[in-house]
């Protein structure tokens, strides 16, 4: 008996190691391979400034990826993240430029608004029992329409909010550590990822999200208020989309109301490449960030290599499949 216990507990330990850590490690290997490939074959790829460029190009997709990771782990999907980002950017514009609110209030307002809209998606899914795909497809349209309505279909500029650039293009860290020119938007992405990772793995919120995604019925029968946690999950996603909205609008110094369509698929791809399972219950924020990096290294590398637009699209499509394939194969081996 003792023997069995020992054996199975050893088994269990290494299994746990497998699913959580190796999963990220796998995506990481793909990323390193891509970096090495482009470093060798794309002249001018491996420079610090290009790395900063890649990081900056990752920020928005990375943050949106984290948003959708919450939802996917909970067993849902969120197609509205792209246009929700746009809508919150517009709301930030209204609060800051049109209403002249101070910067911190505007930031909080935009994020809360994102969370509010997200919770509407969540409520529609939880109480009206609409499948998440449809509820968020509807919300994707609603957010896009509202972004156009609120903005009058013209960009809102942040010229009257001089510090708005702090939210993304400016690099505050370079003031502390000279030479480390990492833009704040990238740092915000890492901060969002770090907090999200803790929320998912260490807190009660994360536990409930994993439980929902693993077996919602079992969670319900265990006395968990499934609907409330579901709403919270979509609210978190919406709030994080708000952060993405701030980053993108700070970078463009304007809220562009027509942006965002199609961003949802990139974000979902980042999450899945990073090992998040579309059937729920499995995923990590770190994996998603690595997935987002894989996608932007790929895009950047192909651009720097000067690959033709058409072929770039083809290759990107193929590599998404290959990256997930490598992930699956290595994970099976591990």
């Amino acid at each position, binding site marked *: 008996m003792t023997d069995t216990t020992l054996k199975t507990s050893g088994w269990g330990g290494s299994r746990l190691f497998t699913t959580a850590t190796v999963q990220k490690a796998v995506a990481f290997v793909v990323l390193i391979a891509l970096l090495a490939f482009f470093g060798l074959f794309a002249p001018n790829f491996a420079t610090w400034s290009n790395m900063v460029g890649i990081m900056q190009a990752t920020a928005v997709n990375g943050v949106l990826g984290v948003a959708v990771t919450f939802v996917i782990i909970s067993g849902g999907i969120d197609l509205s993240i792209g246009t929700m980002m746009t809508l919150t950017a517009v709301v930030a514009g209204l609060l800051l430029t049109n209403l002249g609110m101070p910067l911190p209030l505007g930031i909080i307002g935009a994020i809360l608004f994102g969370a509010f809209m997200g919770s509407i998606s969540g409520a529609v899914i939880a109480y009206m029992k609409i499948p998440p795909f449809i509820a968020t497809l509807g919300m994707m349209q609603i957010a896009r329409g509202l972004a156009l309505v609120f903005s009058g279909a013209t960009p809102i500029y942040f010229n009257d909010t001089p510090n708005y650039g702090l939210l993304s293009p400016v690099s505050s860290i370079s003031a502390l550590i000279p030479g480390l020119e990492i833009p704040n938007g990238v740092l915000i992405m890492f901060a969002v990822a770090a907090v999200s990772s803790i929320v998912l793995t260490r*807190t009660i919120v994360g536990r409930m999200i*994993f439980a929902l995604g693993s077996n919602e019925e079992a969670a319900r029968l265990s006395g*968990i208020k499934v609907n409330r946690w579901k709403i919270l999950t979509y609210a978190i996603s919406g709030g994080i989309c708000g952060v993405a909205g701030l980053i993108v609008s700070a970078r463009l110094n304007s809220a562009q109301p027509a942006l965002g369509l199609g961003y949802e698929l990139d974000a979902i791809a980042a999450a899945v490449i990073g090992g998040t399972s579309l059937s729920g219950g499995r995923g990590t924020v770190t994996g998603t960030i690595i997935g987002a990096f894989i996608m932007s290294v790929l895009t950047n590398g192909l651009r720097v290599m000067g690959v033709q637009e058409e072929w770039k699209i083809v290759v990107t499509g193929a590599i998404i499949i290959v990256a997930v394939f490598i992930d699956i194969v290595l994970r099976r081996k591990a």
Partner: protein
Amino acid sequence: MAKEADDRAGEENVTGAQPEALPTLVDMRGIEKSFPGVRALQNVRFDLRPGEVHALMGENGAGKSTLMKILTGVYQPDGGEIRVDGRPVTLRDPQAAQALGISIIHQELYLMNHLTAAQNIFIGREPRKGFGIFVDEAKLRRDAAAIFRRMRVGIDPAAEVGHMTVARQQLVEIAKALSYDARVLVMDEPTSALNETEVEHLFTVIDDLKANGAGIVYITHKMDEVKRIADRVTVMRDGQYIDTLPAATTPMATIIQMMVGRELADQHRATGRRAEEEVLRVTRLNRGDAIRDVSFALHKGEILGFAGLMGAGRTEVARAIFGADPIDSGEIRVHGRPRRIASPADAVANGIAYLSEDRKHFGLVTGMSVRDNVTMASWGRFMSGGLFMRDGALGDVAKDYVRRLKVKTPHVHQETRLLSGGNQQKVVIAKWLLRDCDILIFDEPTRGIDVGAKAEIYRLLEDLAAQGKAIIVISSELPEVLRLSHRIAVMCEGRITGELDGRTATQEDIMTLATQRAEAA
């Protein structure tokens, strides 16, 4: 019956003719429940006292699980009254039941596969730290380990549930129910996947609970368990209350007769008859640690039993032969010729059928009708023009099997997910009977099946063998293995540790081989 109900409706604390002054924990009266097409419960009553084990018995589909789902807030009754501690209550949802100290081990496993055992056990009730938002993972694991220790099972609290066998999952489910420290604990076939040892450990735990004044509702199809632990037995048939009797003084035969409404023939041992023609030979089969050098032969007209403890590797062997999992090495000969079996399709083409132990995930297409489930392995035979399905013919054969196996279903178009567990099992059996393979591998064929149906299935297996089919029966119930098998192969840790003659083998012989570990480094 109506008269008795009237009598009881009078005073709160008067529990029929029972002389003890113990208050009832739970009292359910006149419970009604209908599902589309099925009247599952009609005027059913049930009561539970502190410190007793009250067995709830009845054939498949009698309404046992439904009654208990009503008691635990999963379903709402259409009529009737539920009293807890004498007070009428409405159990709107599982939380309401939990708040009253009622918890349940469901017949079907309701676990979160991606979470660990400990996380599953305490889901929704995690110990917190750090302003109440962080989960105290260490305490969680300690508490889970304590429960496992109490149950005397070696499960790692940090292991993911999804990677466990059905048996281990069932143990986790039991641990979860125990963790509530409930006053009323409903166990709906808790031991259907467990072996003798685990069952014995569970009974010790139940004895403890009883001593502490908890009331336990125990649903099972295993008669010996009832004798062992039950104080009272309530029998249901076709959604109706039949009677409540003291377990100690009532003969089993009486209970069985009440359940099935007729008398059952006596159980007997396998006869030694078998043909010499070899149908299947497996040589030095290997697959990781799970299957090590497994070799055996199966003959025409023979029932070969596979016995062993949980995780011994019997299911793994069956799946490997069936092509469901890839093998590392080994040879499989069918009718003397070596065959490459890389997929279940290959296996079926070679006349091998496999009835999985996990019907919910691997046996049934729950969203499809009884007709389609019964026929799905044989669709190729029911086509016209190479493309169109002959639905009329499919319906006819399905009806035929429903009749032959006494599947309780309103009609063959019912979705199988709406059938009771035992009836689902019969549907899967019907699927393979219709397919008419030479070699039938039945993995836990009577899991969740009532005594009456069990006897029918035994007869069926014997008939099949008599017709010249070669049959492997994997079972964790030793009496079943002994009852059916001409020969018994016993496994331990992926090896076949010995073969016994079915006519002479005893439970002790099997247990000796089942615990015979290899003397490895």
